[in-house]
C-alpha cells in the first residue's frame, strides 16, 4: 500500500495533510440515517454533526416543514439529438434506480414532494456530440419547491450533461446519476442563483462496471447553497472524478459535502474542490468523507480541497475525512490547504509592471484554470472563466486579506 500526501508549493498556506493510516475517526461522520420516510429524519437544529456549519435560520424551513409545492420556475432544455429528455411521473421506474436513499430531512422531503421527475437518458452506445443543457430559471424565492432529476448513462454511452440554476428560488432537490457498464459521463451542476436563493441539493452517483464519471459542482450565486454528493460503485473498475469550484461573496454560505463510498474493489476516486472567498461573512464549508470498506481492495483515492481567502472577514472551513477498513489498497490520501492571497506571487507579477488588480486577477484566474480545464467542457469553460472575472470585479474595491492567517479550521 502506498500513501501519498499533499504536494504544496504554494507560499503562505496553512497546510493540513496526511495519508492512509490516519487515526480512526470514530466513524461518526459516516453515521447517517437513510430513509425515504420523512419522519425518520428528525428536524435538524444545527447542533448535529452534519448541520453544525449551516446557518439554520436561513434555510427558510426547507429542513423543517415549509411546503415544497411551489412551481415558480421555468425549465428549458437544449439536448443533444440522441439524448432523451422527458418529464415523467414520480412513479417512473428510473426514480430510485441509483440506489440512493435520502440521508437527511430536506432530501427525504424533496423526494416525497417532487411530483414530477426530469429523466435524462443517454441510450446505449450513443456518443453525444454536444452537451445536453438543462436550465432551471427560478422566478421567485417566496414559495419553496422540490425537484428530482435522474440521469442515466446506458452501456458504453458517452455524454455531457449540464444542469444550470439561475434566478430566485427556495429549492430542495435530488439528482440521481446512474452509469451503466463502460459508460463515460460528465455532469456539471452550476448554481449561479440570485442573491435571495436557497438551494439544498443531493446528488447521488452510482458508478457502473468500468464506467468513467466526472462530476462537477460549480457554485457562484445564492444566499445559501448546500450541495451533498454521495457516490458508490455498482461493480468493480469504476473511475470517478469529483470536482468543485465555488466563489463566495460577502454574506454567502456555500457548503460542499462529499461522501465517497469505496464499496467495490479496483475502483478509483479523485476529488478536487477549489474555492475563493471575499467580503465580510463570506463562508464556505467543505466536508470530504471517504470510506474504504473491507471489500474495496486495490482501490486508489485522493481528495484535495484548496481555499483562497481574498479578504478579511471571510471564513473557510475544510474537513477531510478518510476512513480505511482494508490494508489492501493502492493508495489513499487527502489534503486541505486554506490560505490568503500570496504576497510573493503578487510581488513577482507587479515587479514586471503588472498593476495590483490585474495581478490579483491573474492569480485567481490561474487558481481556477486548472479546475476549469479538468472539468473539460469547452462549451462552459468560457462562461466559468467569465463568471470568475465577474466575481473578482465585485471584490475589486475590497482591501486584500491582512497578513494574519484567515479564520479557517481544518480538523478531522
Amino acid at each position, binding site marked *: 500500500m502506498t500513501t501519498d500526501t499533499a504536494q504544496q*508549493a*504554494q*507560499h503562505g498556506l496553512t497546510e493540513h495533510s496526511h495519508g492512509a493510516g490516519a487515526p480512526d475517526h470514530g466513524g461518526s461522520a459516516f453515521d447517517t440515517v437513510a430513509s425515504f420516510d420523512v419522519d425518520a429524519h428528525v428536524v435538524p437544529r444545527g447542533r448535529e454533526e452534519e448541520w453544525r456549519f449551516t446557518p439554520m435560520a436561513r434555510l427558510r424551513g426547507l429542513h423543517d416543514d415549509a411546503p415544497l409545492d411551489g412551481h415558480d420556475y421555468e425549465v428549458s432544455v437544449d439536448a443533444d439529438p440522441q439524448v432523451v429528455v422527458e418529464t415523467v411521473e414520480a412513479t417512473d421506474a428510473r426514480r430510485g434506480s441509483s440506489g440512493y436513499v435520502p440521508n437527511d430531512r430536506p432530501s427525504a422531503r424533496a423526494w416525497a414532494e417532487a411530483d414530477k421527475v426530469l429523466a435524462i437518458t443517454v441510450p446505449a452506445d450513443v456518443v453525444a456530440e454536444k452537451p445536453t443543457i438543462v436550465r432551471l430559471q427560478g422566478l421567485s424565492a417566496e414559495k419553496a419547491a422540490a425537484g428530482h432529476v435522474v440521469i442515466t448513462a446506458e452501456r458504453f454511452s458517452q455524454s455531457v450533461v449540464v444542469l444550470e440554476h439561475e434566478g430566485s428560488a427556495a429549492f430542495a432537490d435530488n439528482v440521481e446519476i446512474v452509469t451503466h457498464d463502460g459508460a463515460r459521463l460528465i455532469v456539471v451542476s452550476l448554481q449561479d442563483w440570485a442573491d435571495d436563493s436557497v438551494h439544498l441539493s443531493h446528488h447521488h452517483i452510482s458508478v457502473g462496471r468500468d464506467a468513467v464519471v466526472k462530476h462537477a459542482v460549480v457554485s457562484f450565486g445564492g444566499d445559501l447553497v448546500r450541495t451533498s454528493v454521495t457516490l458508490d460503485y455498482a461493480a468493480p473498475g469504476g473511475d470517478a472524478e469529483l470536482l468543485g469550484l465555488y466563489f463566495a461573496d460577502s454574506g454567502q454560505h456555500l457548503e460542499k459535502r462529499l461522501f465517497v463510498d469505496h464499496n467495490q474493489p479496483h475502483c478509483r476516486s479523485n476529488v478536487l474542490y477549489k474555492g475563493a472567498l471575499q467580503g465580510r461573512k463570506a463562508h464556505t464549508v467543505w466536508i470530504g468523507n471517504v470510506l474504504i470498506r473491507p471489500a474495496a481492495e486495490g482501490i486508489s483515492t485522493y481528495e484535495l480541497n484548496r481555499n483562497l481567502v481574498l479578504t478579511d472577514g471571510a471564513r473557510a472551513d475544510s474537513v477531510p475525512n478518510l476512513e480505511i477498513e482494508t490494508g489492501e489498497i493502492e493508495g489513499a490520501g487527502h489534503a486541505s490547504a486554506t490560505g490568503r492571497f500570496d*504576497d*510573493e*506571487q503578487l*510581488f*513577482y*507579477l*507587479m*515587479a*514586471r*509592471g*503588472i*498593476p*495590483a488588480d*490585474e*495581478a490579483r486577477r*491573474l*492569480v485567481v*484566474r*490561474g*487558481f*481556477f*484554470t*486548472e479546475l476549469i480545464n479538468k472539468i473539460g467542457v469547452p462549451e462552459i469553460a468560457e462562461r466559468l472563466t467569465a463568471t470568475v472575472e465577474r466575481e473578482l470585479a465585485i471584490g475589486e474595491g475590497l482591501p486584500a486579506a491582512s497578513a494574519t492567517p484567515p479564520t479557517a479550521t481544518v480538523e478531522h
Partner: protein
Amino acid sequence: MSTLEIRGLHVSVETEAGPKEILRGVDLTVRSGQTHAIMGPNGSGKSTLAYSLAGHPKYTVTSGEVLLDGEDVLAMTVDERARAGLFLAMQYPVEVPGVSVSNFLRTAKTAVDGGAPKLRTWVKDVKEAMDKLAIADDFAERDLNTGFSGGEKKRHEILQLELLNPKFAVLDETDSGLDIDALRVVSDGVNRFSASGDKGVLLITHYTRILRYIKPDFVHVFVAGRVAEEGGPELAEKLEEKGYVDYVGTPA
C-alpha cells in the same frame, strides 16, 4: 542617458524582536552604459538592496533615497517602478500556478509598454529570445516558474529582461545554481541587453565566476549592509584570491 542614484539608504525588516536594520547607509550611482558588480558574503544584505529597489513590502526604508533620473523611486508602487524602467531578476523567482509563461509575458509587456505588442512581431520576438537562451518552445505554455529547475528559472528571468527591455537591471545572484553552459547562455543574454542601448546593470553575486563572462566597470564589496570597498575590475581579482576574509574576518 539615465541615472539610478541610491543615497544613504537604510532598510530594516520586521522581526519578532522588533525592526532589524539590514542596510546601513548604501550609496551607489549607476549610469546607463555601466555595469556594476556588487559582491558580498552571504547575509550581507545584497538581496535586501535588490528587493528594496523593487519595492518588496517586507522591507522598510527608514531613511535615504533612490532616484531614477531624478524621480523618487521610493514613492512609487512596485508596478510603477517596473514601468519606470527598473527590472529585478530575482534570486528565487516565484512560482505562479495557473498563469502560463506566454500569458504572463504578454501581460507584462503590455503593462511596461502601455499598450499591447503587435501580435505577429511579438510571437516572433518571444520565440527568438527563447531560442537564444536555449529555452524549449513548450515553456511558453507551462505555468510560470512552476516546476522549473533552478537553471530554468534563471534563464527565464533573463528572457524577461530581454523582452521587457528596462533601463536598469538588478540581477540578484542570477549566476548561482547554474552549470557552466547555462552560465554562458545567461551571461550572453545579459551582455546582449547591455549592448542593446544605454543600459545600466547592477550585478549582484557571491562568486567571481560570472565576471569572466560579464565584465564589470565597477566592483563594490558589500559587507554588513553597506559598501565596504569599491574599485575597478581588479577588485574582483583580489576577491577571487582572498575571498571576503579581509572584510569579515573569516573566509566566506
